């Protein structure tokens, strides 16, 4: 059913994807495709750019012209595409390690330059593809294979970075809150300028099981219970850590 509806958007010939059963990336990808369809974005006017990681495979699953570049370099590569093809919607989809960790400097500067890119970051709190190492979003105290005593650091504050710019679109949603996620994507696609969306996700196989979760459903339920949609944001107000919403200036 959804395959028929989204066949112009997703490259179903490549199914099954390389993602583990129960992974939230499939949800995120479908919602992106649906939001694009509803926003009249398609292969004639849109390109998808990804970096490296589980999320990085997204570009190749879209049935568009797309690029799967280097780890951490999706944003700057996309800025090159946009510079020579301002007529195209250039959408970046990549992981938290990719965009916030190794690629953090590019995020800092592309957002400051207000490059007209739409950057969707999958925040699964972990380096999924490489087996569950600590990412910039791993919460303080959480044990991973590279932080066996628990991460000693506060996680990265993307909202703080993005909203330090003169103009910004910053949104946070999750793979559980799908209607909200779709709304965020549609709004970011119509924003003129740099837009960043954090999509709260989980990683069952390379993180969750080690933390005691038995299945993806348990992790989804935790996201459902943790995050609340904040719709009456006042100008200048920030989202609390457990809030989802859209902030623009």
């Amino acid at each position, binding site marked *: 059913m959804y395959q028929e509806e989204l066949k112009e958007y997703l490259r179903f010939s490549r199914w099954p994807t390389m993602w583990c059963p129960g992974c939230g990336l499939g949800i995120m990808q479908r919602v992106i495709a649906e939001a694009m369809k509803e926003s009249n974005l398609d292969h004639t006017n849109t390109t998808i750019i990804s970096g490296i990681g589980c999320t990085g495979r997204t570009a190749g699953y879209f049935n568009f012209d*797309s690029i799967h570049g280097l780890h951490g370099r999706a944003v700057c590569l996309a800025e090159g595409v946009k510079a020579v093809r301002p007529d195209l919607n250039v959408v970046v989809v990549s992981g938290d390690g990719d965009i916030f960790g190794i690629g953090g400097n590019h995020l800092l500067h592309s957002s400051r330059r207000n490059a007209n890119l739409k950057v969707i970051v999958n925040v699964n709190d972990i380096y999924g593809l490489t087996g569950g190492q600590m990412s910039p979003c791993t919460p303080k105290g959480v044990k991973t294979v590279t932080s066996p005593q628990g991460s000693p650091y506060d996680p990265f504050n993307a909202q703080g970075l993005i909203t330090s710019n003169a103009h910004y679109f910053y949104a946070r949603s999750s793979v559980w809150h799908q209607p909200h996620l779709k709304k965020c994507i549609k709004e970011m696609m119509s924003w003129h300028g740099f837009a960043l969306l954090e999509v709260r996700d989980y990683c069952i196989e390379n993180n969750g099981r080690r933390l005691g979760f038995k299945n993806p459903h348990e992790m989804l339920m935790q996201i459902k219970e943790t995050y609340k949609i904040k719709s009456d944001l006042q100008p200048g107000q920030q989202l609390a850590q457990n809030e989802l919403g859209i902030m623009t200036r």
Partner: protein
Amino acid sequence: MDTRFLQGNEAVALAALQAGIQFYAGYPITPATEIMELLAEEPARNPRFAYLHFEDEIASINAIVGASLAGAKAMTATSGPGFSLMQEGIGLAHMTRAPIVIVDVQRVGPSTGMPTLPSQGDVMQARYGSHGDFYPIAFSPNSVEEAYAQTIISFNAAEESLSPVVLLMDGYIGHLYEAIDLDAVNIPPVPRSRPPFGQGRRHFTGLLSRDDVPDTKDSAYYREWYAGYKKEIQIVADKYALFETVPNDKSNTIIISYGITSRIVRELGDAYAYFRPIRIWPSLDREIIEACQGHKKVVVIEMNDGQYGGEIERILKRESVSIPVIGGDLSLSQIVATMREKKVYKA
């Protein structure tokens, strides 16, 4: 006649425009900065040319790969430290077959080294700098006119081979002023070969892929892919088998040098035969073997500690004499002193 008094770096920028550059991305570094500064003025004149001053060389190389895959002719220019940062991106361009031009105006390394002094220390980095096996094309000009011509050739070769091409300048040529007649360099630009983005359903990936789909476990397929890729680049490289040779039957010694060093070396006079590779990668094996036939001694003079000399020995399968000119001090007296020491100088 369109005679201009130009600096090497200026010639590169002008040639890039002549070749049809549509995008420049870069980060300033001595002694390459003038290329960027000149092209920074271009968007105001030409709305079809895009220019971005990035936060670093990593961003610059990735941006030109993106722009290239999206259909534009693109270039960046840098020097040693930036060239080091670009290596992963150069590999991506090889894997995705992105035609781009990278200008490396070499300075003395390692590390920050001697920023204002020239060198040829990145010759092997241009060949092997990125990880894995790849097969790059690179040119080494020895004058401002050649810098101009070979910039256009680099764009053309990149387009034809669908691969990144390196123009190996050095701080000397980059800053040298010479009068050149632009009209005398008549190299028509090759048009963009790949259809523009945003109409198709193509997927470019740094993974080994088959028909746009990653295929990363099939060793036999890798070998087949690599052979095809290498052959395609060799065919284009063969079109640009550029070199200069000064035969001398009476001399038992041939001197091999390239870039600015070759011009100083020619002051050594008629007692030697000379060979100068211009297309420095892939190496001109056949031409080098031919040139060295009948010469007992092969002397390689270069502004590094014998990098290309090692290649020459590999090609000839015999010993050569290396005259390293290191530390940025490119002087005939220094060269003569080392040649005397190594007993290859003919007074």
